[in-house]
C-alpha cells in the first residue's frame, strides 16, 4: 500500500471516529467503552475483552450541550457532551473517565446523572504522585477491574492483563518508531497526519492498530525525503483534544516541521511503557507514578524545597526541544483549559530564560479562524528563518 492511501485511510477513520467500533461490536457481540481523555487505562478494558475508544468529541458546531453545561467549560468537554446528546455514543455500552481536571470530574458527574449509561465508571488518579498516594491508586485500579469484570462477565486474569499491556506497549513502541522517522526526516509525515494516525489508534482494536502501524512504518522507511532545509519545531499543549488539522498544516506550509510534540494524540501517548516486572496491576500503578510531567499532575518532591523555581512540565518541553534539536516551540492553548493556562505562565518564563523562541496560539472549538493566526505564524516562521 502507498503512503497516500494509508494516510487517507487514517483520515477517514478519524473523520468517522466510531464507525469501526460499531462495526466491531456488531461482528463480535462484545462491549465498547467510551473513555474520556486523558490517561484512562485502556489496557484494563482490553483485558476484559471490551474495546476502549477515546471520546474526542467532534468538529461539529456545539448545538445541544450548552443547554446542559455552562459555557465556561472547555471545548473538549462541551463537544464531548454535545456528541453524546446528538446520539453519537448511543451504540456504546458504557463510559469511563479518569478525573484529570476539574472540568472532566464535574462534567462526567453531570453526564452520569443527566444521561446515564448502563456502565459508568469514574476513576481517581491521584493528582499528587508519590508513595503516599500509590496505595489508593492501586485500589482504584482494582475497583475498575471489578467493574469491568461485572460488565463483561470476563475475569481479568493477571495473564490477560499482562498480554493487553504487552499489546499496548507494542503500539507505543511503533508510535515512537514513527515519531523517530519524522524527527530524522522532517516533512515525511505532516503534523496533522501524525495526530490523526495516533488518534485513530485510540478508536480501533489495538491489534488492528499494530498491523496498520507496522505497514505505515515500512512504507515510511522506504520513502526518500530529506527535509533538512525545514525549520524543526516542537508542538506542546492541547492536552486532551486533537488539534485542528488546518492549523497544523498551516504551520508546516510556512516551512516549519513538527519533529516532536507533547500532544495526547501524539508523543505523550507513546512516551512511556508500562514496565511489566511483577503484578500487572502494580505495573499499571507504577506507570502512573512515573508518568511524564503533565499540567494535570503535581510532583510533590519538586515543591517541598525552599528557594527554587520548579516546573517539571517546562523541563519536559525544554528537554524535547534539546533532544530533538528543535529551534522553537509552538504552544497550542485550548480555550478554558485551566491547568495548561496556569502552567503556561511558567513555561513562557522558562522558554524565555532558555532563549527558545515560542509562539502561543489559542484555539477554540470548530474550524480555527486561520486568517487571524496566519500573520502571526508567518511572522514567526520568517523570524526563525532569519535568525537561524
Amino acid at each position, binding site marked *: 500500500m502507498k503512503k497516500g492511501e494509508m494516510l487517507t485511510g487514517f483520515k477517514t477513520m478519524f473523520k468517522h471516529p466510531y464507525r469501526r467500533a460499531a462495526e466491531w461490536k456488531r461482528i463480535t457481540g462484545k462491549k465498547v467503552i467510551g473513555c474520556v481523555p486523558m490517561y484512562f487505562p485502556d489496557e484494563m478494558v482490553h483485558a476484559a475483552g471490551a474495546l476502549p475508544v477515546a471520546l474526542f468529541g467532534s468538529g461539529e458546531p456545539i448545538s445541544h450541550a450548552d443547554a446542559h453545561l*455552562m459555557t465556561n467549560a472547555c471545548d473538549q468537554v462541551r463537544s464531548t457532551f454535545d456528541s453524546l446528546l446528538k446520539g453519537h455514543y448511543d451504540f456504546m455500552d458504557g463510559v469511563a473517565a479518569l478525573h484529570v481536571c476539574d472540568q472532566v470530574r*464535574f462534567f462526567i*458527574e453531570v453526564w*452520569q446523572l443527566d444521561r446515564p449509561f448502563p456502565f459508568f*465508571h*469514574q476513576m481517581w488518579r491521584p493528582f499528587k504522585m508519590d508513595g503516599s498516594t500509590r*496505595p489508593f491508586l492501586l485500589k482504584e485500579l482494582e475497583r475498575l477491574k471489578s467493574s469491568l469484570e461485572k460488565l463483561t462477565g470476563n475475569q481479568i486474569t493477571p495473564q490477560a492483563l499482562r498480554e493487553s499491556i504487552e499489546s499496548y506497549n507494542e503500539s507505543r513502541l511503533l508510535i515512537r518508531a514513527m515519531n523517530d522517522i519524522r524527527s530524522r526526516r522532517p516533512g515525511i509525515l505532516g503534523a496533522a497526519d501524525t495526530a490523526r494516525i495516533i488518534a485513530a489508534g485510540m478508536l480501533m482494536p489495538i491489534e488492528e492498530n499494530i498491523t496498520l502501524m507496522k505497514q505505515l512504518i515500512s512504507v515510511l522507511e522506504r520513502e526518500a525525503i530529506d527535509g533538512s532545509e525545514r525549520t524543526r519545531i516542537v508542538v506542546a499543549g492541547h492536552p486532551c483534544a486533537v488539534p485542528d488539522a488546518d492549523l497544523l498544516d498551516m504551520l508546516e506550509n510556512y516551512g516549519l516541521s513538527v519533529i516532536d510534540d507533547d500532544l495526547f494524540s501524539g508523543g505523550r501517548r507513546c512516551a512511556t511503557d508500562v514496565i511489566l516486572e511483577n503484578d500487572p496491576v502494580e505495573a499499571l500503578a507504577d506507570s502512573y507514578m512515573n508518568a511524564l510531567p503533565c499540567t494535570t499532575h503535581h510532583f510533590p518532591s519538586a515543591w517541598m524545597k*525552599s528557594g527554587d523555581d520548579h516546573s517539571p512540565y517546562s523541563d519536559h518541553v525544554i528537554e524535547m526541544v534539546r533532544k530533538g534539536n528543535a529551534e522553537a516551540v509552538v504552544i497550542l492553548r485550548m480555550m478554558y483549559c*485551566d491547568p495548561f493556562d496556569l502552567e503556561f*505562565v511558567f513555561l513562557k518564563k522558562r522558554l524565555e530564560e532558555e532563549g527558545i523562541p515560542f509562539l502561543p496560539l489559542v484555539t477554540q472549538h470548530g474550524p480555527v479562524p486561520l486568517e487571524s493566526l496566519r500573520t502571526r505564524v508567518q511572522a514567526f516562521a520568517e523570524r526563525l528563518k532569519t535568525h537561524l
Partner: protein
Amino acid sequence: MNQRLEAQHRLGGLIQKHYGRAREIERTREQPIAWASTGAPNEILWAMGFFVQFPEAYAATCGARHAAHAHCAVTEARGYERHLCTYCRNSIGASLAEMEGTGAFEPLARPDFLLVSNNSCILITKWWEHLSHYWKIPMINIDSPLVVPGMDRGDIIGHVKRQCIDLIQFLEDFTKKRFDHDRMKEIVENGKRSADGYRGMLDASRHDPVPASFFDLIGHNFPNLVLRYDPASAEHYEQMKTELDMRIAGGVAAAPGMKYRLYWDGVPYWFAIRNLYEKLRNFGMSLVTSTYFEVFAFENLDPSHPLDSVAENTAMFYLNRSVGYKTETTERIFRDFHLDGGVFAYASSCKPFSISMHYIADTVRKKLGAPVTIIEGDLVDETFYDEERNNTKLQALAEALAAKRK
C-alpha cells in the same frame, strides 16, 4: 442587614484581632506562618504552632473591598488568562504586588509554608504551586479524591490520613519540633465545639421569619474557618445562638415584610453583596440559607480520634462531594428551611461550582417545583458582573414566585 446583630460587632473584633496578630507575628517571627486552603487538614498546622492564614478568605475580603480587580490586573500583565479563577489571580496578584512594593491593599502576613488540598478543586494545587514559586517556600498538597459512588469511604479517609502522617513528619523537620498529640486533641476538641456552634447558628434560619439572613450570616464563616482551634470561635457561636434564639422568641425578623424565602447557590459575588441584598429586599425576597455554608461546616472532627477525624474532615469536604450528593443536600435544605425559590450564582471563573450548577438548579425546579434563576458574575472580579442583566433575572424570579403563590 438593617436589623444589625450584636454578633456582627463581635465578629469585627475577632477579624481585627486575627489580622493584627498576623502583622505582629510577621514582625517578631515568634511563630511560623502558613497559608492554607479552606479544606486542608489545618488542625495539624495549628498543633505544630503555625499561625494560619487563608488566601481564599483574603480574596473574598479583597472582593468585598473592591481591591481584587487591581490584583487580578497584576496577573494579567504576567500572562495569566482572565478566565482563570479570580480567587487564584487575586492571591497571586496581591503576592506579586507585595513583593514588588506596589500593593495598595493590606496584604496577608508573609508565609513560611504553604498547605493545600485539592478537595475543593484541582486548580487550587496549581495556584499553590505558583505561590510556592513566587514566595520561594515549600508547599504540600493533600490529595483528596472526589467522592463518587462506588468508592469506599474508609479507603478515601485512609488515603488522606497517610498523607497527613507524611505532613506531620515534614513539619517536624521543618519546624524542628515534635508533633504534640495532646495539643492536637485539644485543637480538635475546640474545633468540634466550634463546628457544633456553627451548625446551631445555621439551623436558626429554619425559623420563619428568619432571624438572620444569608447576608447577615455570611461573614460568620470566618471563626469556624480561621479560629476554630481557639475556644473564642465556639464562644462566638454560642453567644450568637442565644441572640438568634431571642430574636425567634421575640418574633424579630432579619428584614420585616419579606414574602419569599430563598436559597443561594454558589460563592457570593463579594463586591455585590449590598447591591444584591437591596435588590432582593425590594422584590420582597429574603435569602435564607445556602449550601455554601456547608463548605465551612467541618463536622467530622472527633476528639476521641483526632487524626482520623481530621483526615475524614478533609476527605469529606463538601466541595469534594459528588454532584449527586450536592443535589440531594440542596433538595434537603429546600425542604428543611421551607424555601420558596433559589438564586444560583454562576461564577465564570469557577468551574467546580459552575459546571454542575445547571443540573442542580434544574433538578430543584423539576422535583420541588421551586422557581429558580441563574445569575451571572464572578467571585471577586467585578468586571464580569452585569448588574442590569441580573436584575432582570431577579425580577423574573419574583414574578414566578408571585404567580406560583396565587
